[in-house]
């Protein structure tokens, strides 16, 4: 139990926790102290001074975001002296750069503008010298307009503290100070990984998202709390939509990813160019023709009835939700008795504990990564590992290939040196083990020695690999020996090798969101929803059940995959 400290804010008695800042204590009881450079996700630095408050027996005003509470402290947050000082600070902020609202993308959602309204600034106290600063548009997904920047350094802090990438900093001094990447190269040529966390945390219009700029203010858009489905980390995200169109995706600050998403999670959605499948299609006279759901389901049921159940094969991607996966197993294994499996690996052969969390990573002193490359395949895990390393944890990498994590590793072993890696971890106090599919089974067994000490995080290749594994599904793809084959692809695509195998089946049904080479050779095609059109859940790699929410309404004429499977079962 933390020690309680009694303070008074604006005459009101407050029981704060020792170690809290004045800002935190005030926020806890609903007293709003304005802030610009401060954000709860990063370390306070007291740079902008807009949160200054009057504290009894303190010389001058003090920044609330960095000032710790002490017993008997008396604070005034909106006294005339404080308000005068804040108006003065706003005047200084507006005197540099270009903070002219009518042609700014952030007008209406800008934290600086909101404060000018709050303190009734009807004109600029000090005139802007009007010198233009550069605009950097060298990154693919977002633009940096230095004219809008107030140098709050939130971007620098998320870059180093959360994404652990240390790309951003400042150069020059005084009024010439600007945010820069790698000491002063264009952002697009820097070490920036375009995770977009800086874009999300910018309080003004200095960082602009190319896709969603000018597409809607906060008051005009809807936010749906959901989960990113691009990998098994299952980052908490918010999908921002307007009139049924996805504008952008933001990371959820309160979830295990701490607001951070990766390039894929934040921007991949908007690079989609494949053509959507809109109705069921059946091959007639060697051409794919649109048919009704009834006809398509009847045809599929007929094809399955004609084949002996041993000659029916059904495979699904792990990039699907719990309800669909369960229904898939219930229909094809339970009702039809077919061969079932998944299209991606599910770490099925590993008999290691589950349930390690991203938080365990941050408190680990040693991190063992084996048979996986988190920075390219599970980037947010990669960022967490880098964060932990910056705070003193040691990374032990067990890998045979050119792993992105290699340059952060304290020690690197080849896969057949697992014994040495395990020994290294045994000497540490709180190790975390992350294992991926490239770990050979005989080497993975050696990890069992760490069972009592370490937390284990399985790095499933696809988003709902955890549930697929729990359902006993394996990557046993063998369609060539089947008479009738059903493939549930969702929005994934199939490798050329797998397509070649699938073509050998006598009858091929494909359930997918987009047209692709496999749908061209199928006998029957069913349209599938996209993940953000579903209402459902999945298990992330921590083994936690998380809700995937419907952010846009269902396209007309589409039926969720699990209902399609239920209707198929009714026909069998």
């Amino acid at each position, binding site marked *: 139990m933390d020690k309680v400290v009694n303070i008074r804010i604006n005459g009101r008695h407050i029981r704060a926790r020792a170690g809290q800042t004045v800002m935190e204590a005030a926020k806890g009881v609903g007293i709003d102290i304005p802030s610009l450079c401060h954000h709860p996700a990063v370390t306070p630095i007291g740079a902008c001074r807009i949160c200054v408050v009057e504290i009894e027996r303190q010389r001058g005003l003090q920044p609330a975001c960095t000032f710790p509470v002490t017993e008997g402290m008396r604070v005034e947050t909106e006294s005339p002296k404080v308000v005068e000082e804040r108006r003065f600070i706003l005047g200084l902020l507006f005197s540099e750069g270009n903070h002219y609202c009518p042609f*700014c993308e952030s007008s209406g959602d800008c934290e600086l503008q909101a404060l000018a309204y709050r303190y009734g600034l*009807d004109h600029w106290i000090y*005139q802007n010298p009007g010198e233009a600063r550069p605009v950097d548009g060298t990154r693919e997904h977002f633009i940096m307009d230095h004219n809008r920047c107030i140098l709050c350094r939130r971007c620098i802090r998320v870059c180093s503290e959360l994404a652990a990438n240390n790309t951003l900093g400042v150069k020059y001094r005084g009024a010439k100070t600007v945010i820069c990447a790698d000491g002063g190269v264009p952002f697009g040529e820097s070490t920036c990984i375009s995770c977009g966390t800086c874009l999300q945390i910018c309080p003004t219009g200095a960082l602009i998202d190319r896709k969603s700029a000018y597409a809607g203010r906060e008051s005009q858009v809807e936010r749906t709390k959901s989960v990113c489905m691009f990998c098994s980390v299952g980052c908490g995200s918010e999908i921002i939509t307007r009139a049924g169109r996805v504008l952008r995706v933001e990371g959820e600050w309160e979830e295990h990813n701490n607001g951070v998403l990766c390039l894929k999670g934040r921007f991949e959605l908007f690079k989609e160019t494949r053509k959507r499948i809109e109705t069921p299609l059946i091959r007639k006279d060697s051409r794919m023709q649109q048919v009704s759901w009834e006809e398509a389901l009847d045809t599929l049921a007929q094809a399955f009835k004609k084949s002996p159940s041993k000659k029916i094969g059904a495979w699904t991607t792990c990039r699907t939700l719990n309800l669909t996966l369960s229904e898939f197993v219930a229909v094809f294994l339970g009702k039809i008795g077919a061969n079932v499996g998944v299209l991606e690996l599910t770490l099925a052969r590993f008999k290691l504990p589950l349930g390690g969390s991203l938080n365990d990573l941050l408190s680990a002193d040693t991190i063992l990564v084996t048979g996986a490359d988190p920075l390219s395949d599970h980037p947010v895990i990669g960022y967490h590992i880098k964060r932990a390393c910056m705070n003193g944890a040691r990374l032990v990498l067990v890998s045979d290939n050119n792993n992105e994590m290699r340059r952060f590793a304290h020690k690197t072993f080849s896969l057949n040196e697992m014994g040495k890696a395990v020994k290294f971890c045994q000497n540490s106090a709180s190790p975390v083990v992350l294992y991926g599919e490239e770990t050979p089974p005989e080497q993975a067994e050696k990890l069992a020695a760490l069972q009592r000490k370490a937390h284990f995080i399985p790095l499933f290749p696809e988003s709902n690999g955890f549930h697929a594994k729990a359902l006993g599904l394996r990557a046993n793809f063998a369609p060539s020996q089947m008479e009738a084959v059903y493939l549930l692809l969702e929005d994934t695509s199939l490798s050329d090798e797998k397509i070649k195998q699938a073509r050998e089946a006598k009858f091929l049904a494909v359930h997918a969101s987009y047209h692709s080479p496999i749908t061209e050779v199928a006998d029957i095609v069913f349209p599938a929803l996209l993940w953000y059109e579903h209402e459902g859940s999945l298990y992330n790699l921590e083994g936690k059940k998380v809700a995937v929410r419907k952010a846009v309404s269902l396209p007309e004429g589409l039926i969720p995959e699990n209902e399609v499977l239920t209707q198929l079962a009714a026909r069998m």
Partner: protein
Amino acid sequence: MAKIKIATDWLAACAGCHMSLLDLDERLVQLLDKIEITSSPITDLKYPPREGVTVGILTGTVNNTAHLEVARVMRERCQILVSLGDCSVLGGVPLMRNQVKMEDALRRAYVETESTVDGLIPRSEELAQPIFARPLDQVVKVDVYLPGCPPSADAIHFVIGELLEGRIPVLKDQVLKYD
């Protein structure tokens, strides 16, 4: 009681602020019981009378030498000068021109625009010369500010109403807008 005299004029403006003034609609007719608009860009008489007015209202950015003159005359002939609209208060869209060299701006506008054939930059000495664009209060003393692009008719009504009551208006909530 004699009517309060108000004069208004524009500098580098898009006319949006004066459109907003006209958006007062029937309230403008009611106001005319108490005020007299001596001159405005949208009436026959353009210049504030020599004998002076109580309230002068200027919209637009100070953008060339003629604007300097208009601002100076208005300041001399009114008791209370109202800076109306974002261009006048903060500098507005014309301020973007400051970010390029004057010659580049002129060449772009008169020669390089896609719709121009055989363009020529006007150089006659009789014309006003462009200057570094700036808000009104950089040139003359301003008494009342009303930002907005444009300020709403309600905001203009509020400001005139407060001045008629003998108060300097304090802007807040819906009356205070920057865009």
